[in-house]
């Protein structure tokens, strides 16, 4: 294919001299890429642009995100996948695979030695300081024995092609490597959106690797080998790769837990579930070493489990990778790796590394200090970008400071040669551009060797001539193909679809943290829906009021404004101090109640609380739900941008949000099984709706109004409750208070009546796991039964009674007040019995050491 005439390549050439994956120096094309390029060319630029958009859309829709801390654009960034994959031919890959396997074997041996006999140090193969001065060397983990043949169960390496055309190792990732899930989702998305690009190309599939990955987890169990309980430990939704934790949990079918869900008792690790404690055998962790046990490691960690290390010492649980493996993420080892390889395996390293000098040796240190401008300096135990010094870009003062730092603790520094890694084509604005790439590979322990994922995750530098490749800065990724000449089986559909996967078999085993989030999801959703409908009703009345000057109309509006404050508990608002002013411009207050996220009780705040519990439950939700939810967020954002807060626009926004909330609630019911936790969601939802019904009735119908006003108020109540049609159907009459009370509060058949809701809560609470030892009712059962008896005992005649001065229906008010109290007590009892997070983890002595 002539390069010059291909429009895709029009922007590919520049003065930027570099090794390119596709274009050889004589301007011919690397034959391995020919088919891919011709597939891309055939599709045409317009089509490719459309496909790139579709991928972006798919990633967005599927909620594939990468959180960037302190990102002003918001927490969850969409994951970027470029439609042009990166590829390596099978022939070359065989060597790379051997090199990765060798490296994983080697790091495993180093890990065992460091925390075991330390022969490498004793025999002078590696200097003591490289290990002992590395903050990842955890003395608490010394001499721990493991039952698995390999101690390092997952190894991940960042590879890049060096100037000699070979793949070089840049970094090792050994604690809790990320990227496997993203790699899988990349493959899935690309094959879904761009099947054509795979045409006539044989790409190796990772299905076997993931099967083996699962086997590795199962076999790691030190006991209960037949049916081990495996969990995935995440730092939580704020973590940058939380999407992937949830994705893997869903894909593998294991519960996703946080430190708070686990506890150490009787020398074992347990997961807190709704019913009881359930022993955990294997933890696939995404929490870094030092955060794993606040008793023995970092005191300020809330991400781990106190006492965990001793359970590991006693071989009652397996952690993957073992705690302490972070010491291998150590650039100080690089200069000694070949010697170590010869020491253990009697052979040289297969994969080259960047030339490195450890400053703990005098000669090397002198060399480094004399050639600083040509070198890249790193701390041995920090590989994040903030701790890498590209000396050529430093000014004289910064160089002096760095020199002083090196001289103070030379053993903490390593200097590396500047290397220009290869570029590969990236599809950018309709054309291909060369970009630096970095390949993350994954190896897992299998029997006595390692199994390597065919391919992996490829990350691309954000700008054309950028030196750095990192996701933390919001980079782009690529699918990573290993192409072969042999035909491959079809791409399997790795759809992330939680509807067909039941990760938790029984409600008894539901982690209590998940249960709590489900319960609150129900409550927030219920509150959001009731609040939105109520605000919409009031806004509609305001709209009508503009054309209607009836006295009762304006009077009833004032009552409605005041009821908003009561129902949402946003005092003083329309009722407290300063309410005259607020009543003069009611729209302003209503806008604040809708839009002000910082205001407790506002619609915006309810939505944002829901957002939090929703995101913590990531692994349970389906794609459709994500889509609907994301739709709500986009509507909201757009509305804020447009900045038109007229009554009509507010009503339109609420209309749209209400429809989506209802769609969302419908999806929840069909996506999660009752035993998977839907029960908790229902209890939360019904409890909130019942509570809001009581609040509405208390602020609207306990006072005695004159007839016209009464009529307006009743109509408003029924409208906000979406019950006007049902009322008309049931009573075919003028609105009357006794009928409204019968319908909204006492009707036993009507799904929106309080009586029905309370009965439903009672039924659901009875289905929760109850401890066998308590013969009596649990506290929450007791309170909800009391509420049910209360509402069944109410008589309409007594409720309608007005007190002596004719202003108030005292019996009605008293009944509603006591129901409200009982619902509140029920909710508290549920929290106490099932969520048990009321006790916080604390240090006996608050040491607060500066450990950073």
């Amino acid at each position, binding site marked *: 294919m002539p390069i010059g005439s291909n429009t895709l390549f029009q922007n590919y050439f520049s003065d930027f001299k570099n090794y390119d994956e596709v274009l050889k120096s004589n301007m011919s094309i690397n034959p391995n890429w020919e088919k891919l390029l011709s597939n891309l060319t055939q599709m045409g630029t317009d089509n490719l642009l459309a496909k790139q958009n579709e991928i972006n859309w798919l990633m967005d829709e599927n909620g594939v995100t990468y959180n960037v801390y302190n990102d002003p654009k918001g927490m969850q960034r969409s994951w970027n996948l470029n439609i042009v994959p990166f590829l390596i031919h099978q022939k070359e890959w065989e060597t790379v695979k051997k090199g990765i396997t060798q490296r994983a074997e080697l790091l495993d041996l180093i890990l065992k030695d460091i925390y075991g006999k330390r022969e490498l140090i004793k025999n002078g193969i590696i200097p003591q300081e490289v290990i002992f001065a590395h903050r990842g060397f955890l003395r608490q983990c010394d001499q721990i024995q493991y039952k698995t043949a390999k101690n390092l169960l997952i190894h991940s390496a960042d590879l890049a092609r060096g100037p000699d055309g070979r793949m070089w190792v840049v970094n090792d990732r050994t604690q809790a490597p990320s990227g496997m899930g993203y790699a899988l989702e990349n493959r899935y998305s690309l094959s879904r959106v761009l099947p054509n690009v795979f045409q006539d190309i044989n790409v190796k599939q990772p299905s076997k690797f993931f099967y083996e990955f699962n086997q590795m987890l199962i076999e790691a169990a030190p006991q209960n080998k037949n049916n081990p309980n495996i969990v995935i430990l995440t730092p939580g939704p704020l973590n940058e790769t939380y999407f992937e934790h949830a994705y893997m949990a869903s894909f593998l079918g294991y519960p996703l837990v946080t430190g708070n869900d686990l506890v150490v*008792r009787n020398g074992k690790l347990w997961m807190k579930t709704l019913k009881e404690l359930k022993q955990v055998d294997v933890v696939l962790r995404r929490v870094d070493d030092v955060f794993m046990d606040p*008793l023995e490691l970092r005191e300020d960690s809330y991400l781990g489990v106190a006492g965990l290390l001793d359970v590991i010492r006693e071989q009652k649980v397996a952690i993957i990778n073992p705690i302490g493996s972070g010491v291998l993420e150590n650039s100080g080892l690089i200069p000694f790796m070949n010697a170590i390889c010869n020491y253990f395996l009697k052979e040289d390293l297969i994969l080259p590394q960047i030339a490195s000098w450890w400053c703990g040796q005098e000669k090397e240190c002198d060399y480094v200090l004399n050639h600083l401008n040509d070198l890249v300096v790193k701390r041995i135990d920090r590989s994040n970008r903030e701790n890498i010094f590209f000396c050529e870009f430093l000014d004289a003062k910064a160089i002096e400071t760095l020199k002083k730092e090196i001289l103070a603790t030379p053993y903490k520094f390593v200097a590396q040669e500047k290397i220009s890694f290869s570029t590969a084509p990236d599809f950018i604005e309709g054309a291909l551009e060369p970009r630096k790439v970095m390949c993350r590979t994954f190896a897992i322990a299998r029997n006595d060797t390692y199994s390597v994922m065919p391919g992996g995750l490829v990350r691309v530098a954000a700008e054309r001539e950028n030196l750095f490749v990192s996701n933390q800065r919001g980079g782009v990724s690529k699918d990573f193909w290993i192409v072969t000449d042999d035909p491959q089986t079809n791409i399997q559909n790795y759809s992330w679809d939680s509807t067909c996967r039941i990760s938790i078999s029984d409600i008894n085993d539901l982690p209590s943290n998940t249960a709590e989030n489900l319960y609150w999801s129900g409550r927030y959703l219920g509150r959001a829906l009731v609040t939105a409908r109520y605000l919409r009703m009031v806004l509609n009345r305001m709209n009508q009021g503009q054309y209607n000057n009836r006295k009762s109309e304006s009077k009833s509006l004032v009552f409605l404004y005041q009821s908003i404050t009561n129902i949402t508990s946003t005092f003083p608002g329309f009722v407290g101090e300063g309410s005259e002013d607020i009543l003069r411009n009611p729209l302003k207050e209503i806008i604040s109640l809708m839009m002000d996220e910082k205001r407790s009780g506002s619609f915006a705040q309810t939505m944002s609380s829901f957002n939090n519990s929703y995101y913590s439950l990531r692994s349970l939700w389906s794609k459709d739900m994500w889509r609907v939810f994301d739709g709500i967020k986009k509507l909201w954002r757009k509305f804020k941008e447009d900045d038109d807060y007229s009554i009509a626009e507010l009503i339109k926004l609420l209309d749209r949000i209400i429809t989506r909330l209802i769609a969302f609630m419908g999806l929840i019911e069909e996506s999660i099984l009752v035993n998977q936790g839907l029960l908790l969601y229902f209890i939360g939802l019904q409890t909130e709706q019942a509570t809001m019904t009581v609040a509405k009735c208390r602020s609207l119908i306990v006072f005695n109004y004159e007839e016209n006003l009464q009529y307006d108020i009743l109509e408003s109540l029924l409208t906000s409750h979406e019950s006007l049609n049902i009322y008309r159907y049931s009573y075919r009459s003028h609105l009357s208070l006794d009928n409204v009370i019968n319908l909204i509060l006492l009707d036993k058949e009507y799904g929106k009546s309080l009586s029905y809701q309370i009965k439903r809560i009672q039924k659901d609470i009875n289905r929760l796991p109850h401890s066998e030892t308590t013969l009596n009712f649990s506290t929450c059962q007791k309170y909800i039964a009391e509420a049910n008896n209360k509402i069944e005992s109410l008589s309409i005649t007594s409720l309608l009674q007005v007190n002596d001065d004719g202003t108030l229906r005292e019996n009605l008010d008293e009944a509603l007040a006591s129901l409200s109290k009982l619902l509140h007590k029920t909710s508290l009892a549920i929290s106490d019995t099932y969520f048990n997070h009321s006790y*916080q983890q*604390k*240090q*006996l002595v*608050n040491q607060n050491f500066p450990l950073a």
Partner: protein
Amino acid sequence: MIYQLSHTTSYNYQSGVTFCHNIATLKPKHMLGQTLVEYNLEISPKPTEISDKLDFFGNTVTRFSIQKYHKKLKVTAHSKIIRDSSLVPDIYDNFDGQRITLNQAVIALKQINPELLDIKQFVLESILIAKITPEIKAYAEVSFKPNRSIFEAAYELMQRIYNEFEFNTKVTNVATPIHDVIKEKKGVCQDFAQIAIACVRSVGLPARYVSGYIETLPPPGKVKLIGTDASHAWFSVYIPNFGWVDFDPTNNQIPKNQHIVVSYGRDYYDVPPLKGVIYSTGKNKMKVAVDIRPAL
């Protein structure tokens, strides 16, 4: 000397604790010159689980957990110890040890042999003694000079800290960084020990933290009150060709029979007498009482 020793730590929890995991490093060492005749650890309420293990530095750590609700935790270590420092080699009897200079020591430490490996880790930074500043190094270099005996220098360092730092229990706590202590020149035994260690390490020599007790004597004519002794800390410097030599900068002396050693570490962080994670909502109050008296 034979000592009867008790060390009680009690916590009162305002709103009770449902569950706790703890680690105690309280068992005095059994070693040359210090014989541990009796030892028992009394914990109330009775722990659900309890186990002893050696830590990385060879100290005995006791892990225990209490799984029932309690409002008070009381941990008492009782021990009977025979202390005879005359059994330990004395630096004053070792001419070579007394004379070895900083230059000679640094060269001697460059060898690679297994014995030195355990010792050389005490030259490196540790959790509480990190980022040693030029200020600390300058303080050290007043005493430590290339051609001066390191024993002399360490002795002088101890004296300078004793004279120039004010013993004051109000200004520091376990988390006070050494950089604040060197500026304020105030603190307690633990701060002085850590400052000294930072100084010794800044010139490239190994120094370790010693946690233990010191017997205090009542004023003449007064009866000794129970519980007035304290847990104590000092530092130890490694002198090549001789071994570790202890220095107590709080009392300006080389520890002998009045000092009882519990544990060695890089700094306080490695050897806190009692630490733990509790599950509770309220505040807690701690009380410590140490009593050392000659056994009858």
